[in-house]
């Protein structure tokens, strides 16, 4: 049976619930698309249900303190077929009653773990690489273009770091943004067309000056630098702009 879900995490958890209630060992999960392809299997439209989702999440939490978080991060990759790898890993966890991520001899576990690591890694990189420009007193803005949709993973960090400020972090790749004010933060969608941010020249120049001067000329190692700051992220990094 193919289970179509609405591309929300609660929807996916509901799908897992339905699969387990139906004892369906050959289930496939897919996000609902406009034109559902013809399939030889039966299909089932999952109706997202928060209560069912909560029960599944509670069960997964019991397997280990980080299981749910790791699954969630892997899901954020929105890779094709990620739901089915998640399903295999969840099966391994629930059938053994133990943290599936510790059972690395299973191929699905390794695969999922490496995906969730990539997502975490990029979220961490965004904590490093967001560069705010000051637009007005107490108003800041930054642009990022991460490969994965990691805004949700970084909002809390920046909000608690700058609790009194107003700022926006625009994700120009997924057309979403974090809006943060002293009252709290949330994610909002962005239009396709976003005007570039104005320059914040004085401090941008000082930062570039510092960045240049701090390198030790007897140790230049551009290869190592490229490993830590891949070229694809440099577009929005003040210190790499001339």
């Amino acid at each position, binding site marked *: 049976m193919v289970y179509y879900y609405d591309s929300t995490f609660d929807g996916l958890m509901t799908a897992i619930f339905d699969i387990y209630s139906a004892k369906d060992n050959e289930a496939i999960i897919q996000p609902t698309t406009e034109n559902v392809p013809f399939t030889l299997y039966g299909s089932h439209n999952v109706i997202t249900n928060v209560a069912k989702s909560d029960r599944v999440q509670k069960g997964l939490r019991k397997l280990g303190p980080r299981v749910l978080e790791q699954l969630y991060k892997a899901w954020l990759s929105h890779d094709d077929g990620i739901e089915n790898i998640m399903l295999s890993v969840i099966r391994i966890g629930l059938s*053994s009653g*133990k943290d599936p991520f*510790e*059972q*690395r*001899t299973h*191929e699905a576990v*390794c695969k999922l773990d*490496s995906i969730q690591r990539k997502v975490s890694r990029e979220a961490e990189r965004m*904590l*490093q*690489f*967001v*560069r*705010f*420009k*000051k637009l007005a007193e107490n108003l*800041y803005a*930054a642009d990022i273009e991460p490969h994965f949709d990691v805004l949700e993973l970084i909002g809390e*960090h*920046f909000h*608690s*770091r*700058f*609790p*009194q*400020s107003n700022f926006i972090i625009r994700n120009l790749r997924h057309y979403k943004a974090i809006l943060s004010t002293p009252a709290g933060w949330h994610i909002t969608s962005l239009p396709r067309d976003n005007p570039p941010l104005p320059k*914040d020249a004085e*401090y941008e*120049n*000082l*930062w570039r*000056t*510092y*960045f*240049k*001067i*701090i*390198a*030790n*000329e*007897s*140790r*230049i*190692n*551009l*290869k*190592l*630098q490229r*490993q*830590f*700051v891949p070229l694809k992220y440099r577009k929005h*990094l*003040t*210190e790499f702009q001339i």
Partner: protein
Amino acid sequence: MLEEKLKILGGAAKYDASCSSSGSGRAGKDGFGNAHMAGICHSWAADGRCISLLKVLMSNECVYNCSYCVNRRGNDVPRATFTPEELAALTAEFYRRNYIEGLFLSSAVVHNPDYTMELMLKTLRILRKSYRFYGYIHLKVIPGADPLLLYEAGLLADRLSVNIELPSEKSLKLLAPQKKKTAIIRPMEAIKSNKLQNLEERKLFTSAPLFAPAGQTTQVIVGATPESDFSILQLTKSLYNRYNMKRVYYSAYIPVGRHPILPGPDRPVPLLREHRLYQADWLLRFYRFDADEIVDSENPNLDLNLDPKCAWALRHPELFPVDINSAEYELLLRVPGIGVTSARRIIEARRHKKLDLDDMRKMGCVIKRAIYFVTAKGRFAATVSPDSPILRDILSEGTPYPQMSLFDTPSTSLLQGGSKLSLSDSTRAALQPVKI
């Protein structure tokens, strides 16, 4: 001009190795900033080193004349001093743009130690009290300053450090006659005891202010003076044990000084030696090694061609191979190529099934080196046994730094050139003096 000062005082601070912003968890809602427990690097400079903190000197107008230092009084370089207001504002503005995690403030000695510390503390007071800045601050204490100033420094900063500079008192006397060993040791002791006392106070009153929550660190200059790795690692060990150091940093000497005993300007920087010392330091801190196991008075220097753990394993063929399905955690950690993460994964995974080498590979363990030191399900998969004399050549690493000269390389390696494993970038990266 602020930009000129930044050039001079940032440029003068770059010889300091440490830039870590880890180990503190300060936060406050009434201002801005917080200290991230694990530390965050915000960029990497052209030398591949992490930029986490704004690392500057308060001033480079030094009244001392340490021979190994660019800022020595007798050296003809441009001089500058930040005003506390300037530096506090610069730090805050950089922080708000997410360029940095905070400030690493050090200084040459302006007029005298107390005067210098006052300037630095004034900067910190503006940041903490007027701006309500909760980001990370690392302050390098000026040896010889009043203990009360040191105490205040601990209340304002997350981390304090006093550089030990040279690895022996003799070298210190020779090259930095104005610095006394006791003047360096005394603040280390004071930081340690203030911190212990503070922990006691905080047990009674949780509201008692924190004293240097991220502890203290120090730095040793390597290769300026003739001390062996044995004496450096013995020093390291006692620094970790006696003063609860969080980190000891090693800084390969860059020839900027002039003194008959100092290496001349054309002497290459001993980067590989520095790298091996960091590896040895890791073995002390994370792999439960003792300094005497790594080098001893008979072999007083680290082998530049071998990872120190490989070198140790080659000296102890009687302990290998070990069975990955039964060896205890401590022993797994001693297998070349098995790191902390791999050892943990093996322990976790073998609870569920018996492992073979393929499982190890699947788990992400790199078995290139481990293969010579382990058995799995009773099978030893390498063609060369742990006690074979040629294993040493197989495990030797090519020299990763082309600027190395023969002067730095002990001629003990059997293989000069030939096919060697080269040090992977990630290993090298992991061992750079960056955040951990």
